[in-house]
């Protein structure tokens, strides 16, 4: 009989779930979106993904070496961050910018706060927000989807030299949101849902994003109250303004399916670490994000508001948690 016996606290069994398994499920849920992004934008997005992942993983490794904490590469969370980050970028973004943003994701989004589980903001969005502030022109230069030569050539902007004078392609597209906001051009919901429009690498195909979220819902990983709250607020608010000012306000469906709303609502706002923990808290948090999106989109200077809406709500999340606690066992009686 082998001694000594292992002793630890009960329970002595567990459900067999783990952080790395959750992260793997999220990657699996995102895989159709990733494949579609590569299909729609070709080599440019493939390189964008590779560079983002390399940059994030290497940065994570670097900070792991600096820190005394456990190594965190094996939990897959950084890969999820990197993939989501890449999916939010304009397809023709210069690779060096993507690499720099990846470093910011890890440094300012994650490690400065203490690594996995401690980040108040979604790290991918921190990286993206940095790029948006540093390179506003590059971050709003949209490559057309499904161009004929997308698998043989790259947009000139992709391979731009670091800190050189940026070069952009002559052919650039307006996103449906920008087209609506600045030129009052409508895009059909059908085209939006199927991802036939231009936009960030992974935000365009709503159908695949919904399918991925459905998978996570089935695996019981998705905090579904968050997208529910976002959709509710967006539909109600937009619907209301659409009734009052039908000429300038887009339809609720256009709002839902355009821009980064689906990607943001389903995969970024739902980042468990930076969102509230109770079901009601998640719903309230979703409502706040939805309202902010509508406000920024309709009255802000920018056509898109998902990123700032989520980052702002991230900051509110601990306060929501403090205000909305689970009711303990029958407190009423």
């Amino acid at each position, binding site marked *: 009989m082998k001694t000594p016996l292992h002793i630890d606290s009960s329970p002595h069994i567990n*459900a067999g779930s783990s952080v790395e398994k959750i992260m793997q499920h999220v990657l699996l849920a995102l895989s159709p979106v990733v494949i579609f992004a590569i299909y729609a934008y070709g080599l440019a997005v493939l390189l964008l993904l590779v560079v983002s992942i390399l940059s994030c993983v290497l940065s994570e490794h670097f900070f792991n070496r600096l820190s005394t904490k456990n190594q965190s590469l094996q939990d897959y969370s950084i890969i999820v961050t990197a993939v989501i980050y890449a999916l939010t970028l304009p397809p023709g973004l210069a690779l060096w910018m993507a690499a720099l943003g990846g470093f910011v994701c890890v440094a300012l989004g994650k490690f400065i706060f203490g690594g996995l589980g401690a980040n108040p903001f979604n790290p991918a969005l921190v990286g993206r927000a940095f790029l948006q502030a540093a390179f506003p022109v590059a971050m709003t230069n949209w490559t057309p989807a499904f161009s004929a030569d997308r698998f043989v050539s790259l947009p000139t902007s992709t391979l731009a030299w670091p800190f050189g004078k940026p070069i952009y392609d002559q052919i650039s597209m307006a996103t449906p949101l920008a087209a609506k906001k600045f030129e009052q051009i409508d895009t059909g919901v059908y085209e939006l849902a199927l991802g036939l429009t231009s936009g960030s690498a992974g935000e365009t195909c709503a159908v695949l994003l919904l399918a991925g979220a459905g998978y996570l819902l089935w695996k019981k990983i998705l905090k579904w109250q968050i997208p529910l709250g976002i959709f509710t607020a967006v539909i109600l608010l937009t619907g209301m303004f659409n009734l009052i000012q039908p000429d300038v306000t887009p339809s609720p469906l256009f709002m839902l399916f355009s821009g980064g709303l689906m990607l943001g609502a389903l995969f970024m706002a739902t980042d468990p670490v930076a969102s509230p923990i109770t079901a009601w808290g998640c719903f309230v948090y979703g409502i706040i994000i939805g309202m902010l999106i509508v406000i920024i989109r309709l009255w802000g200077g920018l056509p898109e508001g998902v990123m700032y809406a989520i980052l702002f709500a991230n900051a509110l999340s601990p306060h929501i948690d403090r205000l909305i606690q689970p009711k303990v066992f029958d407190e009423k009686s």
Partner: protein
Amino acid sequence: MIFNQHTFKHGIHPDDNKSETATSAIHQFPFAPLLMIPLQQNIGAAPECIVREGQEVQRGQLLAQAKEYFSVSLHAPASGVIKHIGLMFDIKGQQVPGIYLQPFAASTQEIIEGEPCLFTTSAEKILTAIQQAGIVGLGGAAFPSHVKLKPPKDKPIDTLVINGVECEPYLTTDHRVMLEQADDIMTGIRYLLKVTSAQQVVIGIEANKQDAAIHLKKHIPADLPVSVNVLPVKYPQGAEKMLIQSLLNRQLAPGKHANDVGVVGVNIATAAEIGRLLPHGRGIQERVVTITGPAMTRKGNYRIPIGTPLRFILETLGTSNNLNKVFMGGPMMGSAVASLDISVTKGTSGIIAFSDSKTSLNKTIYPCIHCGKCLEVCPMLLNPSQLGLLAKKQRYEEMQTNYHLMDCFECGACAYVCPSHIPLVQHFRVAKHAIKKQKQAR
């Protein structure tokens, strides 16, 4: 079979792993060469030892007498010689006083009986007999039954809940007792009805023991107000608060007891022991234990003499070479043992042996990722995530005042589902202990 309408909130559905022992009938376990009988086997005061070293005792003879109300007596599990009275290890690894008894050969093991106590006598006499028989809650808590059965006068009891849920995975003792001792259970219920003056008796059984429910139903005497209620399987339904909610839809606020809602709950094995022992004036000398787990060679249910060392049990039944962890009780709430030189007591419902692969040795502990799974399962509707984060920062006071730490009864559902493998229950135990110490210091 129609399911009960109500259930308690949240809970989990672990693999029950009961099939390996559910069909194994209760066998009498042989006597170990030396029994180690701790005096303290109940919550409350330990009984006072009334035998001396070198004395010969008979099986069933009183070894220690309850001197206080909050205490129960202790009987000799075997005829033999008192070898030594001194210290021995308990499950926590602490040294406690106890009696070392060397049994005679099995042929001489006749049980001596005391004065029978019939259910027709007065409630007071029955309660005293229960205390004298050394009966405690056999579900694992080892709370003196006579104390539990006598609620304050201002709290009338209308319902007696008999707990045959056995929601812990792996354990099948209650299941076997229901199948094999239906008549003892019904006799026990007669005593219980007499002392509590309840008007109805509800037996709660989970749906994975349909055979037991059907069997018990057949054995209900015509004159007893007993109903059997089959509940959907869900852990921790065997916890009294949850069971009362599932069976009767009566809610217990934090800090309230079953008798506040007119209920007394009794474990089904305890009811069976009362029905088996009292008519013969006997005391508890043995109990039914499930011996199982991936590292056990011969699994089954055994009636094991109190004081039998774990080492003797494991060596008799055989274990695999990669034995890594042994715990007493169920896998959700049982305690891992540091040494096999401790013994079966009245509170031991199971002995489970795990091999390397089953233990959580190699499970990485991650930081809390706020996934909220623990909130979804906590049957007390607490926030284990927040409690865990506060425990890490040793903010125990806040855990108690703002997050209801003391309502936690350590069922383990939160730690069971945690994808970060945070030992939440351990954190909570440490926190509770620290709070208790602080209180004592004041």
